[in-house]
């Protein structure tokens, strides 16, 4: 604000004496600024029109009275600044308005009173604009600091580069050691990205803005990803003169982006793999009020005709066949109890047809210890499997029936042969050779008895009713069976019996025990062609984890019955078939081929195990494992 108007006063000029009052009045009137004249005591001597507003802001200031309000504060401030003898100039705020204040000490005449002129020019618009700029600059600075943005400006004519402090941080450089120029900058750019970066710069020189221009730099040996966003600055004539922009380190973001890409790729592979699976897969969540289908693979879709979205709406209700609700209830129970399972159920297809499905449900435990809310369903169409299995079972049944009937027929035929032949021959000899006829009758009777045994064995084998089992002292039963046996063995067979299981009980059937002992010992004796020693040992065995696992038995106390011969032994082929009904290597009439199968099925019925070990020409060991029980 200029004050030169006041400086033009020549206070010594006599012509002004009368004139000065008028002049002063005129000057005051002419001044665009608010102006007042005060005397030394601070009394308001004069003011102009623009000053009225300011004079009235606080209390009504009246000419001839001591000044009040903003002008008084201004006068005091000027006096504090200069002691009141010199002009002062300052900016002063009144409310929201800003004023440029100029004060002058004035003495109209040598002897005149000392006066003070205060002029206040309203500079509020300029001041507010200035504040706005300053504030927005501060905000920008704060924002770039928060956003970790660096800013740059390149003056095109001088190639002067201006970097914000964070720009140096991003590049791992110090303003003291790195002179930022376009050339020095290119050195920082990753060699593979230099061409790319030059492209960005060319675009800028063509006046184009940069949006998300990404490139790599090498910062202290490490590769960092940067992103530039910038624009070109134009002068008043529309000529570009500088480029300006922000720079951001996006390495972490890039890494996350790469990780995301990898994740998406893996996801895609998993989906492809699931779609390639020959098993129908569905993922089901139980987070909502009812189980919801989250995903189904291609095979599931092929099997059922439902896609994920069409099933998601209807849930599994769509798949439930009316006549198979029960098994589906079991599936839902498995879901409700966070367990899995294997189910066989009838599944409805979208087209209304149905198939027999094997459904395996497994809980997906993403939080150990917590109930699963996600389940994976594996579904297979087992209609054909079932049909095949039934056919196979049927053919196996037929084969077994053939073997059984063939075996029985062979035995009976051999036994009928002497009956038929000798009874016919005997009729002719009744009178001539009664001794011979008697002998014939003996053979006929013995054949008849043998035939009876065969029929009984067949019936035992075929019988489906379960014999009564109870806890018996096993040692007593085995001893009894051996005593019965002795008489039936050929004179050349010796039995070496060890019984060391006193007091041990087993849940068995006494008749079955003698059947097993009889069959095993007879087999052993036959293997030695009726001459040799058969070892029979009944003992207790405590099976530890490893020993039990080797036999597929539960660890614990077992009773073992061992029957050992040193006979002809068996080859692997024979050994693999010995438990088949009617498989026999024995002479006709000496074995039905049922003994071992009967013994095997009896021991299995006790929850035990019958195992044979054999070596050709060395002998055979039969091992029976019977679970030990407590006494009744």
């Amino acid at each position, binding site marked *: 604000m200029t004050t030169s108007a006041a400086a033009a006063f020549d206070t010594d000029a006599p012509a002004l004496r009368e004139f000065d009052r008028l002049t002063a009045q005129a000057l005051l009137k002419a001044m665009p600024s608010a102006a007042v004249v005060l005397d030394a005591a601070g009394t308001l001597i004069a003011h102009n029109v623009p000053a009225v507003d300011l004079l009235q802001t606080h209390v009504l200031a009246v000419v001839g009275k001591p000044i009040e309000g903003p002008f008084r504060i201004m006068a005091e401030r000027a006096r504090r600044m200069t002691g009141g003898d010199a002009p002062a100039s300052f900016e002063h705020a009144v409310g929201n308005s800003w004023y440029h204040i100029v004060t002058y000490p004035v003495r109209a005449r040598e002897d005149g009173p000392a006066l003070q002129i205060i002029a206040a020019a309203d500079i509020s618009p300029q001041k507010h604009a200035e504040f706005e700029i300053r504030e927005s600059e501060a905000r920008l600075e704060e924002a770039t600091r928060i956003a970790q943005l660096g800013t740059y400006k390149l003056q095109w004519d001088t190639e002067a580069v201006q970097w914000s402090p964070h720009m140096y941080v991003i590049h791992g450089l110090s303003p003291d050691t790195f002179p930022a120029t376009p050339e020095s900058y290119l050195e920082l750019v990753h060699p593979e990205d230099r061409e790319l970066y030059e492209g960005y710069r060319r675009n800028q020189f063509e006046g184009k803005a940069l949006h998300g221009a990404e490139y790599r730099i090498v910062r202290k040996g490490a590769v960092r990803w940067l992103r530039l966003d910038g624009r070109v600055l134009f002068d008043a004539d529309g000529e570009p003169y500088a480029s300006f922009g922000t720079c951001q380190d996006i390495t972490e973001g890039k890494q996350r982006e790469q990780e995301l890409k990898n994740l998406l790729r893996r996801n895609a592979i998993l989906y492809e793999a699931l779609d390639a699976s020959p098993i129908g897969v569905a993922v089901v969540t139980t987070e909502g009020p009812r189980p919801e289908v989250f995903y189904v693979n291609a095979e599931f879709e092929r099997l059922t005709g439902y896609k994920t979205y069409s099933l998601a709406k209807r849930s599994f209700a769509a798949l439930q066949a009316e006549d198979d609700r029960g098994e589906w209830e079991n599936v839902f129970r498995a879901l409700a109890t966070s367990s899995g399972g294997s189910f066989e159920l009838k599944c409805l297809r979208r087209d209304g047809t149905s198939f027999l499905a094997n459904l395996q449900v497994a809980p997906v435990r993403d939080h150990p210890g917590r109930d699963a809310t996600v389940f994976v369903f594996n579904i297979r169409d087992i209609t054909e499997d079932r049909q095949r299995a039934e056919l196979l079972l049927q053919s196996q049944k037929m084969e077994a029936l053939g073997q059984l009937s*063939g075996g029985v027929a062979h035995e009976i035929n051999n036994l009928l042969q002497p009956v038929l032949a000798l009874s016919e021959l005997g009729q002719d000899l009744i009178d001539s050779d009664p001794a011979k006829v008697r002998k014939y009758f003996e053979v006929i009777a013995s054949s008849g008895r043998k035939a009876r045994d065969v029929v009984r064995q067949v019936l035992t084998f075929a019988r489906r009713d379960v014999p009564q089992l109870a806890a018996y002292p096993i040692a007593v039963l085995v001893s009894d069976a051996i005593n019965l046996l002795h008489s039936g063995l050929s004179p050349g067979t010796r039995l070496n019996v060890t019984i060391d299981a006193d007091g041990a009980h087993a849940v068995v059937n006494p008749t079955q025990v003698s059947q097993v002992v009889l069959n095993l010992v007879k087999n052993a004796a036959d293997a030695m062609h009726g001459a040799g020693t058969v070892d029979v040992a009944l003992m207790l065995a405590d099976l530890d984890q490893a020993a039990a696992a080797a036999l597929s038995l539960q660890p614990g106390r077992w009773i073992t019955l061992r029957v050992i011969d040193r006979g002809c032994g068996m080859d692997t082929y024979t050994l693999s078939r010995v438990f088949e009904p009617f498989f026999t290597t024995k002479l006709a009439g000496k074995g039905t081929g049922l003994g071992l199968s009967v013994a095997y099925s009896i021991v299995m019925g006790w929850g035990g195990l019958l195992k044979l070990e054999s070596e050709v020409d060395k002998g055979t060991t039969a091992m029976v494992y019977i679970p030990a029980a407590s006494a009744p």
Partner: protein
Amino acid sequence: MAHILLVEDSPEVSLSVREILASVGHTVEEAASGKEGLKRLRAGKFDAIVSDIWMPEMDGIALLKEIRGAGNEIPVVVISGGAPNAPLTYTAPLAATFGANIVIYKPFEKAELLKAIDSVLAD
């Protein structure tokens, strides 16, 4: 009358077959296995053989192979325990394949066996 080698492991069957053959005047030598039968065949001179199929040591089929393999054309009547339609009887057709002159099925009556013997001896 003929001298016949009877190869049969069941003593009862062997007895009954021997008695049938003896009743018409044939003389019979008995063997309880194919192996024993082969031994007797080499040691003696026979007009015919009557042999079972299913025997220990050497079965009737193996015995036939041995005999025919050695170029011996002696007539052989095979007596089979299997029923003609049961799986085990595969050995009966096999016996024919390996050179049995006649296969008859147990239980047979006196006349059936004698007719078979007569027919092989007549050839």
